[in-house]
Structures are given as structure tokens and as C-alpha cells.
């Protein structure tokens, strides 16, 4: 067992298996909302030349979300089993959900088109759509910080008690 929860998580086959559907589902949702993946009329994956930057961010976001969620779930399972006291697992899940929710702003222009929301919310969506790259970069940074925190959470710090050395020497 290494001191890194990230490494330990993916050494365990069941967590590697758990990461797969998370990555597949999240990746498909992200690629769909970014209009790289189409389900109708035929299953099509298409990346226009101008979309390479966005695709790279999508792949990074997907991989990090899969990693953070899986490691967080493991931390929570260990915590429940009394093998750890870290709250980082729950924090990691919250971070992954927040980062994962970032792309949901794509839904706003869609709702505006459907006439389901007022003009103001639609306008916010259109504005956010213009900032999709910075928002995704922020989501990646959040996930990177979460990964770092999760990885650190497995290191048990042993605090050396302060002793009065001079007294001992006198004895």
C-alpha cells in the first residue's frame, strides 16, 4: 500500500471498473453538449478544426472528473469502514460536481431557444457560451486542486511530541 490514495484507488480493480462508466457517461454528456457527438440521425463524432482546443479541455475535464469522483468515493467508503477520518472524500465529490456542472451553462441558450425561460436568462446563457474556454479552464483548475488535496489526504503526518531534552540529559 502506497501513501498515495490516487495510486491505491486505481490499483484496486473495482475502483478502476467504477471509474470507467463515470468517464464514459461524463465524456459523452460533455461531447454532446459541445456538439462534437451526435446521436441522431446517426451516431456521429465530428470535431471541426476550430474545436480542437475545446475537445482537449473536454478530455482533460472528463479524465479529472473520473479520477476525483472515484478517489472520493473510495475515501468515503474507507471512512465509513472506519479506516480513515478524512472528509476530503466528500469535498472531492462536491468539487467534481461543481466542476462537472460548469458545462451546464450550455443548457441556458437551448432553453432560451425553446422559449422555456425568459430573455434575461437566455442572454446570460449566450454570454456564458462566449466564455466557455475560461470556464472550462477554471473547472480543470478546481479538479487539479481537488486531486492534490485527495492525494495529500492519504499521508499520515506523525507529529513528534516536543520533549524537554535538557531535563532528560540531566537525568
Amino acid at each position: 500500500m502506497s501513501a498515495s490514495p490516487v495510486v491505491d484507488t486505481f490499483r484496486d480493480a473495482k475502483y478502476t471498473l467504477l471509474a470507467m462508466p463515470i468517464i464514459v457517461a461524463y465524456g459523452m454528456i460533455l461531447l454532446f453538449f459541445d456538439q462534437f457527438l451526435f446521436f441522431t440521425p446517426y451516431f456521429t463524432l465530428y470535431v471541426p478544426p476550430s474545436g480542437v482546443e475545446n475537445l482537449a479541455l473536454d478530455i482533460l475535464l472528463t479524465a479529472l472528473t473520473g479520477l476525483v469522483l472515484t478517489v472520493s468515493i473510495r475515501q468515503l467508503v474507507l471512512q465509513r469502514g472506519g479506516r480513515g477520518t478524512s472528509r476530503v472524500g466528500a469535498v472531492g465529490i462536491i468539487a467534481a460536481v461543481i466542476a462537472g456542472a460548469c458545462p451546464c451553462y450550455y443548457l441556458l441558450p437551448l432553453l432560451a431557444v425553446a422559449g422555456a425561460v425568459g430573455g434575461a436568462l437566455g442572454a446570460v446563457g449566450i454570454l456564458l457560451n462566449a466564455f466557455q474556454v475560461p470556464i472550462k479552464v477554471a473547472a480543470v483548475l478546481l479538479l487539479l486542486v481537488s486531486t492534490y488535496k485527495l492525494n495529500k489526504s492519504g499521508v499520515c503526518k506523525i507529529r513528534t511530541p516536543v520533549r524537554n531534552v535538557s531535563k532528560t540529559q540531566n537525568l
Partner: protein
Amino acid sequence: MAHADKPNRKKTIAFGVVLLAVMFVAYGGWRLGQSSSPASSLASALLAGSPPTLGSTNASVTIVEFGDYQCPTCEGWYNTQEAFLVQSLVDTGKAKLVWRDFDFYGPDSVLASEAAYAAGDQGMFWRFHDLLFQNQRTPNGGWASRQNLIKFAQQLGLNMTEFNQDFNGGKYDPLIDTNHSLGVQAGVTQTPTFFLVGPNGKIVTIAGPQPESVFEQAVAQLTSG
């Protein structure tokens, strides 16, 4: 410990399998519901009137595009796919391309639509359509202001007295409203959205900026019966 892990592993595997199955079923259901609709009144509504059309009137498939001149995705599709589509399907007489507005980005979208129709009354709709997408900038950033649209018309050498009269008179407002209502009725939730109407009234919907190869496949599907 190994014994305790076994039920957990089984649970995880079962969870993964169930999740994948749910995704698969959802995808299948969605495809069945959206891919190809039977002949309907929607087909006649999509073909009604005399919208701007590119290509032969005898083409067996009509591709109806719902778009907004301020929509960056429409511009992206125009710049990467439209020329290929025109070359492979329109120029060969397999399909014709019809434009219908679905203006939702703001008032400048409506102005751009009005200007394109005013140019169309002088036989320059598609030239103006091209010019709009070639000059597209940030939505509502002023690139499609009234003054700029007049400049585009001058650039094309249009009769400006006639253009200004048509453009400023609100002549095309009912048409733009009708197109928007038609889009809502047809289920447009994003732009660009394309409805391919086949010879027997069957419709294939292509939502989003999909590659030209998808259109070729859909046209082949519609013409093969």
C-alpha cells in the same frame, strides 16, 4: 478482508453494468423517437410558401435549415460544411437548400434577416447570406447593426432606394415570425437545425453542426425509400 471485499466488488460490477444498460436503452429510445418521422403535415408546413431556395426545384430532397445569422455555431457550420454540401448535394441536383430564420440571439438577428430578405427581392439573397456569415462577429456586438447591414448592401451593389424601402418598412416581419413559429412547431431546440424532407414526405432531422457526410447518408436514406 478478502471475503469482505467480494460482495463489494460484485455490487460495483452490477452498478457499472446497470449504468451502461440504462445509457444504452436511453440512447436507443431517443434514436427511435427522433431519427425519421413519417409523412406529416409538418413536411407540408416546412415546404410551404416560397422561402429562399438554393438548387434545382426538381431535387427530390429539400434541406430546410433553421438558423440565426448571429449564432456562432451556424457560422461554424457555414464555414466548414455548407460549401461541401452545396457541391455534393445541391449542385448534383440531389437536394435543394432552403433557409428559414430562427432568430433568438437578439434584435440584430431580426435586422440581419430583414436585410437578407430585402437583398433577396433584388435576387441577391444567397450573396447577402454569405456576406453575413463571412462578417459575423460577437453576438449583439454591433456587427449586424442597421448601418452595417446597409454597408453590406452597398458592397453588393444593390439598388439602395429599393433596399432601404424594403428593409425599413417592416415588410418581412410576418415572414420572420412565421418562420420562428414553424421552428418551434417542428421542435427546433438549437441552431442550426436541418429538416430533410424526402419525396414521400418523410423527414430526417439533423440537429447541430453535423458534417456533410451525415447529410449525404440521410439523403441516400430518404431517396432509397
